[in-house]
């Protein structure tokens, strides 16, 4: 790995990403086939899961990945953290660092929080989602899922559909796909479109129905229901009609094309229930890949490749 921390995807090279995906693949048997789902790769290393906003799947995924690698881990956040008592982030990080830990995994409501953590600790930092900015470990599990299905990423056509502007998933997935040679199209109502699609180097359209037939992957983003308060869209019903993935749209997809969603889903809004559960859906495969890729990221960033312990 060329990076010390995993903060964003636009700093990753194609080699970095390939190394993460290959390492994750090597961990597949540990997590998916063995009865004893544990290797000693990170035995004696200490990882702090600092979750400053609610998370179910990402937090569980990290915790399981840490257990699989035999790391000692500590999860904190929400009402148990000092951050909510008015302590500054810098003080919290310096305090925990003084206990001598090896890694922080951080989920935060505010963009740039993981970067600030790096400025206050010598430990390695993994961004588990910061505000509307980046969610790089989500992007890696998504790439893993796509590569698993197609055997490659180069040349894949991927539509990312939904609340683009407020999505750290889009913010990290689109650059990572571009780095790996995929073609990305952003789809969403104008009130949800990103301010500057040129920065991603992706076309952006409001017309979902115009792109469906061309795509290898249709990636539906969760609509944050709280965003509706600002009247960016008129109703769930209308959103579902214009941008929801229903069977009529699914039936127009290429034979081999797949459906993805980072979860949690609003069934009946951005994705219909029957679509979420259909044979094209890779949504649960994504969840499984999350454990594998997070094992790979922690293993590589803590120097696992050099410490003589094989997976």
């Amino acid at each position, binding site marked *: 790995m060329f990076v010390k921390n995993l903060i964003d995807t636009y700093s990753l090279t194609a080699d970095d990403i390939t190394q993460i995906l290959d390492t994750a693949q090597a961990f597949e048997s540990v997590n998916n086939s063995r009865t004893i789902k544990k290797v000693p790769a990170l035995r004696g290393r200490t990882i702090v899961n600092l979750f400053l906003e609610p998370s179910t799947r990402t937090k569980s995924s990290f915790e399981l990945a840490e257990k699989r690698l035999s790391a000692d881990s500590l999860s904190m956040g929400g009402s148990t953290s000092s951050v909510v008592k008015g302590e500054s982030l810098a003080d919290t990080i310096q305090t925990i660092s003084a206990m001598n830990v090896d890694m922080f995994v951080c989920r935060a409501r505010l963009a740039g929080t993981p970067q600030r953590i790096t400025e206050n600790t010598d430990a390695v930092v993994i961004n588990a989602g910061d505000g509307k900015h980046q969610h790089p470990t989500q992007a890696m599990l998504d790439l893993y899922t796509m590569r698993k299905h197609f055997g490659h990423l180069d040349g894949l056509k991927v539509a990312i559909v939904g609340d683009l502007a407020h999505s*750290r998933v889009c913010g990290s997935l689109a650059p990572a796909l571009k780095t790996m040679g995929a073609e990305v199209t952003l789809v969403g109502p104008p009130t949800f479109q990103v301010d*500057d699609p040129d920065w991603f180097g992706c076309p952006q359209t409001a017309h979902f129905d115009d792109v469906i037939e061309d795509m290898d992957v249709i990636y539906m983003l969760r609509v944050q229901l709280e965003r509706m308060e600002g009247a960016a869209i008129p109703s769930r019903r209308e959103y579902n009609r214009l941008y929801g993935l229903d069977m009529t749209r699914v039936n127009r997809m290429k034979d081999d094309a797949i459906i993805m969603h980072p979860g949690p889903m609003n069934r009946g809004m951005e994705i219909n229930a029957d679509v979420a559960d259909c044979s094209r859906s890779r949504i649960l495969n994504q969840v499984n890949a999350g454990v594998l890729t997070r094992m790979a990221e922690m293993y590589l960033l803590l120097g696992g490749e050099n410490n003589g312990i094989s997976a």
Partner: protein
Amino acid sequence: MAFLLRGAHVVDPQVGLDGVADVLIDGDKIAEVGQGLEPPADAEVIDASGKYLVPGLVDMHVHFRDPGFEYKETIDTGSRAAAHGGFTDVATMPNTDPVTDTGAEIRYQIDRGKHAGLVHIRPIGALTRGEKGEALSEIGDMVMEGAAAFSDDGHGVQSAGMMRTCMEYVSQFDRAVLAHCEIDSLTTNGVINEGKASTRLGMFGWPALGEELEIYRDIELAKLTGCRFHVCHISTAKGLDLVRAAKKEGLPVTCEVTPHHLFLNEDDITPTYNTNLKMNPPLRTKADMEALVEGICDGSIDCVVTDHAPHAPHEKDCEWEIAFFGCVGLETSLPLMLTKLVLPGKMSWSRLVEVMAVNPRKVLTLEPVKVEAGSTADLTLIDPAAEIEVTEDWLQGKAKNSAFLGWHLTGAASDVFCAGKRTLTDGVVTPA
């Protein structure tokens, strides 16, 4: 006390001066300007050769946080920063606590400034009570106590009808309305320029239109009411074009720009999220920045101001989205203008004097200060060869949130005379 400044290059376009001369200060006035002046017996003679002498610099947009937020800055500490930066006058914005919206609060600031004794405080009164944009404040009372202008700086007046009322009311006095142009419903939650920067860094954008639309509205209201109207901290090329068009039409419209909008742009905000670059209005595009530089050089922009916005360390040493807006600027303004524009020859010395001394006095309807006998002895002596590094220790104000920390600059004020009193001596604020 008398001073004879010998051999400085004097620049004052108001009296057609641009050459070496001696200047004699006696008491609070300039006694004589000429060649080979002989010092009176009690005069201190200062060798000013190689330096530039100009009318005292004026920063017509600062926040001294006094009263109410003295932990960020006070009139005492802000005055030190002002003298260190070469200024003789500063206009203080009214977003204090309580908001400066009555004559008594104007009087407090002036008195406090006299007590500090380093710089003339020219308080700006709030246009509306509490800067809430709902009811006129006691503007006449504030004029009588010495208010230099009126503004709800920090916010735009959201209601066009209320702004019309404000401008109509102010038009009876010889004062300008200074407007922070921002339509809240367009900039809601915005913390960074909308476009590449907001996309790249994943935060809510503050669109240029949120500023431009209100500039347009207020120019038209100035036309309707006849009130003098001044655009605060203009930040976009389009906004500047609107001001240019208004001037061409002969309307009483002026504007100002900050050094951070002249010399920084959104591309300077990196993924380290340096919160000293979080401003309102935000740093805009490179093209906007270049248009503003053109505007300050060609006369379209009237004044350079700093929007000096001191904050305590904990208000900046945090995540970008919750950090306070603004940066300090009094001490870097002149060095930046010299380093980036005057010394490379993009701006003449006389233009510098216009935008930093002559024009701000006009907008604030202050008595002109000229380098001629009989004028108030508000003077700034500039050493164009001074080398400075902007560090926290070098900054003399209470707050250290400069957007230019670590920069190396050439040229700075060496001495300042405020009503004949030497407030800066060889780069050191006096009394120390």
